[in-house]
């Protein structure tokens, strides 16, 4: 059995990669994929700690996270299609109507 720390370190690295992508990329679909990467890193933490503690709750949470991620994907991509129809681009810097 591998120590839980290895999994937690892996998930910390993946989460930071996701943060970097969200903060630096312009294409909103890539930003969306980086958010999925962050969600997955958190899922890995949940499952690793759930196995470590012998507690099932973490895995049930992961199921809910996946359901929310599926809902988020559907709504988010529909929003992107609408945005593209209005602005002819997917650049998140073009979404500036509410910018002060």
């Amino acid at each position: 059995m591998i120590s839980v720390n290895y999994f937690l370190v892996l998930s910390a690295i993946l989460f930071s990669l996701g943060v970097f992508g969200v903060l630096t990329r312009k294409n909103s679909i890539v930003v969306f994929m980086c958010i999925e990467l962050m969600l997955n890193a958190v899922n890995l933490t949940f499952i690793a700690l759930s196995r470590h503690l012998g507690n099932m709750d973490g895995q049930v949470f992961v199921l809910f996270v996946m359901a929310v991620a599926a809902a988020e994907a559907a709504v988010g991509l529909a929003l992107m299609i609408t945005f593209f129809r209005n602005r002819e681009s997917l650049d998140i810097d073009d979404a500036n109507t509410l910018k002060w």
Partner: protein
Amino acid sequence: MEILFFLFVAFVAVGSGVFVVTCKNPVNSAIALVNTFFCLATCYVMLDAPFMAAIQLIVYAGAIMVLIIFVIMLLNIGTVDVVKSSHAVAGGALMSVLVAVQVLYMLNRGEVANIEGPMTESAILEFGHTELLARSLFTEFLLPFELTAILLLVAIVGAIVLAKRDV
């Protein structure tokens, strides 16, 4: 042996994560993301959670990635995407390094109290992981489980209303 295998999987996962962030073409990012999902599913198997690994592959690598690739195809975007200004890249790198340092520090100094739940080595051997999960999901978490169904329904309706030209 197991640790070598884990290090290999982790290396591939981080490598393809880097590709997700750096690839110019969003389709390449999507393929790299699928690769990361496969590596995470392998990690779940190593953590005695085969059901979660199956769900990971079906929901993420199957459904969500197909949706993303379909949208990329529908919108027909090329590789025009560039990263933001160098200030933004520096800021983003700083923030992500800070997040990594913070999490690693917490891991190093934090303590996990060892509450032994129902998922012990012997229980997994006796009932299997899926049955333990189902017991928890359909007794303790029944209400959130039902609410998830409503959430998905609302998401479906919302996606159709948003993407339709005129409702």
